[in-house]
């Protein structure tokens, strides 16, 4: 369950203003929609006046001249019919605007997410980011569609109705103005209570769901410790609280929503009738005016009822918007590049005294220095948490670092344009991530300039064509659910092809063979060898056998390089590397216990 941020009235005002600022680009369409809305209100208001004219000028006096009556009826029908069409387009326009606004908001959020640094993804669960992009914006859409438009409609109607009433009878219109403060009071009271009671109900519900989810997850523990009765009691307790909160809400809604508004409606009728009744003692009254006023009062209350029912949507939208804006204001961005024209040609990599920490407290890399000459392979080995992946994270510019520098062809990695780095460096991840689509689109990714031949060439190069050609649909074979229908080896081969298709100068392998089943390992190995040829390669190796031919092997321990050299040298020195080698090969004859 998502936490509900507590928002003060002031916060809500700021959020609402920011939401409304999204309307700006649509000024023209909104003006048009408002114009249509104005027309429908005029139609709504003029109709009763026509009927009033009919009643007073013709029906009461029982005079029915054909010409004027046909004119009257024609006008009435014309207004009614055009109103139907105008109000349809008006409603549609407002919905369109709301949809466009939400689309913009979604694109903004998604773009923002793409520009966030890896640190943000480390600390935020993926599910909650997705919620910001889709569900929260959906809640805001509901507000735009039903609340904001509802507010506008009732606002316009109230104004229109009052204008008509003032035209018909100033005194009575003034009297009915008394209704406004009463309605205002009811709305205000409702808002005051609902912000407490409704919020309370939502919190109880989220407690209830949290308790249920936790109990379901921990059911085996609850049963093992025989705590079923206690947990049942606890759950029932929360359930009861939730029920009580629900009852309070029903009570509040019953006292302040429709029944209350209907009561005010009756009050309005009483005002009308007493005014007309009392006036009728001294003056003649046009019956049509009574009809018109009664109709206006009727019209006036319906939208108010609707808006009141929807106030809770408004409340939820504000909460959702606060979360969306918080993400939009997030400052954990991707590292900055100084964007010089530096280019990567040879592919020489130098780490110079790099020290790095994720949290600013414990250093995960301490003073790392090494050089990978063009075309050479540098392998990183070490236990989990030794800092291997951090080296790659820095080289790939996933994280910003402050101490030391990383040079590529003599230039700081911070100096290159992001695109240059992405074009020239290819990273293969431990977990080959396949996207929804087909094999071809997974190799090409979004690079539309790549020809089909290039895609196939890349696949052939890494020897992925063998299995791809055996698929029923070949390169067009669908990839669903992250590629779970393929073996991890096959997925890795596709990822290889994807990397090779961009023909990088520098190859970065993050435990590319860690999750591979043994059958495919042989294929993968020979592909890897081919890929590495003529490219500077930084490889994290899970299996030491895969990096025996590396020019340089760095053995890391707790963020430091503790041993360096090639395979033979390291084995000969009988240090940590040697022990790892024994361990991997399951050699136990040699008793290491001193």
């Amino acid at each position: 369950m998502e936490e509900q941020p507590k928002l003060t009235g002031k916060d809500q005002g700021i959020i609402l203003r920011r939401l409304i600022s999204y309307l700006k680009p649509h000024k023209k369409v909104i003006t048009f929609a408002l114009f249509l809305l104005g027309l429908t209100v005029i139609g709504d208001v003029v109709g009763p006046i026509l009927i009033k004219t009919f009643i007073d000028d013709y029906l009461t006096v029982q005079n029915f001249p054909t010409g004027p009556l046909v004119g009257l009826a024609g006008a009435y029908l014309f207004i009614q019919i055009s109103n139907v069409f105008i109000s349809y387009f008006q409603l549609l326009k407002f919905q369109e605007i709301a949809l466009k606004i939400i689309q913009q908001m979604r694109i903004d959020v998604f773009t923002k997410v793409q520009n966030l640094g890896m640190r943000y993804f480390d600390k935020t669960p993926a599910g909650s980011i997705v919620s910001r992009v889709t569900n929260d914006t959906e809640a805001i859409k509901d507000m735009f569609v039903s609340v904001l438009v509802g507010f506008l409609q009732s606002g316009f109607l109230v104004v229109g109705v009052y204008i008509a009433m003032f035209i018909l009878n100033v005194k009575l219109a003034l009297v009915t103005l008394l209704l406004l403060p009463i309605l205002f009071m009811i709305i205000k009271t409702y808002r005051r209570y609902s912000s407490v009671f409704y919020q309370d109900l939502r919190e109880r519900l989220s407690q209830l769901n949290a308790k249920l989810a936790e109990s379901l997850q921990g059911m085996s523990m609850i049963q093992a410790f025989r705590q079923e009765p206690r947990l049942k009691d606890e759950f029932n307790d929360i359930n009861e609280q939730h029920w009580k909160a629900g009852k309070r809400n029903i009570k509040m809604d019953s006292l302040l929503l429709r029944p209350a508004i209907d009561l005010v409606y009756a009050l309005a009728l009483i005002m009308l009738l007493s005014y007309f009744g009392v006036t009728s003692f001294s003056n003649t009254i046009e019956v049509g005016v009574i009809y018109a006023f009664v109709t206006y009062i009727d019209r006036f209350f319906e939208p108010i009822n609707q808006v009141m029912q929807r106030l809770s949507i408004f409340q939820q939208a504000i909460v959702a918007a606060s979360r969306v804006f918080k993400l939009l204001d997030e400052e954990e961005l991707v590292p900055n590049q100084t964007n010089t024209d530096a280019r990567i040609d040879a592919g020489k990599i130098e780490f110079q005294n790099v020290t790095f920490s994720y949290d600013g407290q414990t250093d995960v890399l301490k003073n790392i220095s090494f050089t990978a000459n063009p075309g050479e392979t540098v392998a990183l080995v070490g236990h989990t948490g030794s800092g291997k992946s951090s080296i790659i994270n820095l080289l790939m510019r996933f994280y910003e670092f402050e101490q030391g520098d990383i040079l590529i062809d003599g230039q700081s990695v911070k100096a290159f344009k992001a695109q240059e780095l992405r074009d020239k460096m290819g990273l293969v991840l431990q977990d080959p991530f396949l996207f929804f689509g087909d094999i071809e689109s997974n190799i090409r990714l979004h690079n539309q300039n790549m020809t089909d031949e290039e895609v196939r060439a890349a696949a052939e190069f890494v020897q992925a064509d063998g299995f791809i050609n055996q698929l029923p649909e070949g390169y067009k074979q669908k990839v669903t659910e992250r590629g779970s229908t393929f073996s991890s080896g096959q997925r890795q081969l596709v990822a290889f092809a994807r990397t090779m298709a961009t023909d990088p100068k520098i190859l970065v392998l993050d435990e590319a063979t860690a999750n591979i089943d043994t059958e495919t390992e042989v294929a993968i190995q020979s592909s890897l060898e081919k890929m590495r040829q003529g490219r500077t390669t930084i490889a994290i190796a899970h299996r030491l056998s895969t990096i025996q031919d590396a020019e340089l092997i760095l053995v890391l321990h707790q963020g430091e390089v503790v041993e360096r050299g090639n395979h033979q040298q390291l084995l000969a020195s009988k240090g940590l590397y040697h022990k790892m080698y024994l361990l991997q090969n399951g050699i136990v004859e040699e008793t290491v216990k001193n």
Partner: protein
Amino acid sequence: MKVFLDLGWFFKERKKQYIVGILMLMVVAFLQLLPPKIIGYVVDEIRLGTLTGEALVKWLLLLAGAALAMYIIRYYWRMMIFGSAILLARQLRERLFQHFTRMSPRFYQKRRVGDLMAHATNDLSAVQQTAGAGVLTLVDSLTTGGFVIAAMAITINWKLTLIALIPMPIMAYLTNYYGKMLHNRFHFAQEAFSNLNDKAQESISGIKVIKTFGQEKEDIQDFVQLSDDVVEKNIHVAKVDSLFDPTISAIVGASFFLSIVFGARFIVAGEMSIGDLIAFTAYLGLLVWPMLAFGWLFNIVERGRASYDRIRALLAEPIDIDDTEQALDVKAQGDLEVHIDEFKFPEDERAALKNVHFTLKRGETLGIVGKTGSGKTAILKLLLREFEGYDGWITYGGHSINAYKKERLRSAIGYVPQDHFLFSTTVAGNIAFANTSAPIEEVYEAAQLAHIHEDILKFTNGYETIVGERGVSLSGGQKQRISIARALMMKPELLILDDSLSAVDARTEEAILESLKATRIDETTIITAHRLSAIQHAHQIIVLHEGTIVEKGSHEELMERKGRYYEMYQLQQLEALVEMGGEV
């Protein structure tokens, strides 16, 4: 409408509320007829100049009285009917929870927590809707609709009523038709939305790949396209959705127009008065709601039926491991004998255990080692009676474990699972999980035995610190030790540690094992582990491989044999060395 029958038991239970509530609804439907009538009378009297002050006051008082009565009655029927509906939700939720607590792990293997949650939330709220809004729309559309039509026909003019009602069925038909169209389009809109959701999900999970290939812009472009689709599909929905209001007002307008035109003719003919006509048009306004409500009713009932069926199916899931009538109600203690010929997990072809036989004397410690999937946890699950249906038998203190009352067996066993699950309550509450009223000293004692006491004292709120999603984040080792303390609180006859020392460092592990040895003299302990140091001291060690025992004996005996255990031991020594950076 069958769902109303299915929910009959509840309506019977809340007979009084529903009967009174429905009667009240009828009274309101009747009282609603008054204001238009009063307006009509007053208008006529004003027009004829016969209105007296007294009559006016009388009418107004009647109007005020009716309005007040309606306000009060509306409040009460809502409390009765909607109040009952939320009570139904509460009762069903309680039953579901109760049922969940009785379900065995087999059930939880089959069903995902997310699905169960959906039943307990969405389905419940649909049923609640049926018992509340469903009943309301059914009763209200029938009574209000009926009364209003009756009032129009009887008290004003039946001919005009017929004429004015001509367009109304068209409205019912059209809104129903739109509803169906909307349903389809809404489905597409939902699909587009879910594609967008999947896209966002995928991009966020694959963010590293996207960054690696510098494809942020292209990915955003992709997202924009999908969001265009969402807009398009939603505009399709809006195109139908926006039809409702104009259609309703067109139909009502048509009725209106007919009423005025024909009403005028009836007035001229002297069949009715102008006041009648005004009252008549007001009645027309009252008819709109019942017409619409009827359409909603089908929706609500449809959803309610499907949801209630799902909930009933869930509640009908049989409890597969239950006590027999003659279950032993005695303390479970003594020697443990395990003789399993074969055991398969439900819906699994492969045997998880095969020919596992051993005896564990009371007070002894058993160590079980083996790779992941070798069957260590399977043995424990059978001991805990989480699963039944194996060839062979297990006795504890001379009785089959199936003969004990579940409650008795479980109270003898302190279980520390592999995936240490802590509840979002205080640290103390987690440790005292099995006995919340235990004195705090006992909690301290258990925490000290599990060597977590010092750590807890360092938390900001000590033992009162809240654990879990919204509380402090604990390290894996801390969680494990709290789980151990939780099991030790029970002072269990049989303590089971299922690989629960894996995340604590070697020194702490040794200390915990020492304190177990010192305090658990007459009690039995079973420890499974990857790391041999955790079971080295055990009286008896069994080595599992692919579900069967391949070696058995004490540490010294097994080392002598130079078999699998010996090999594992050597490799682990080397591994420990590597982990420590090669230095001892």
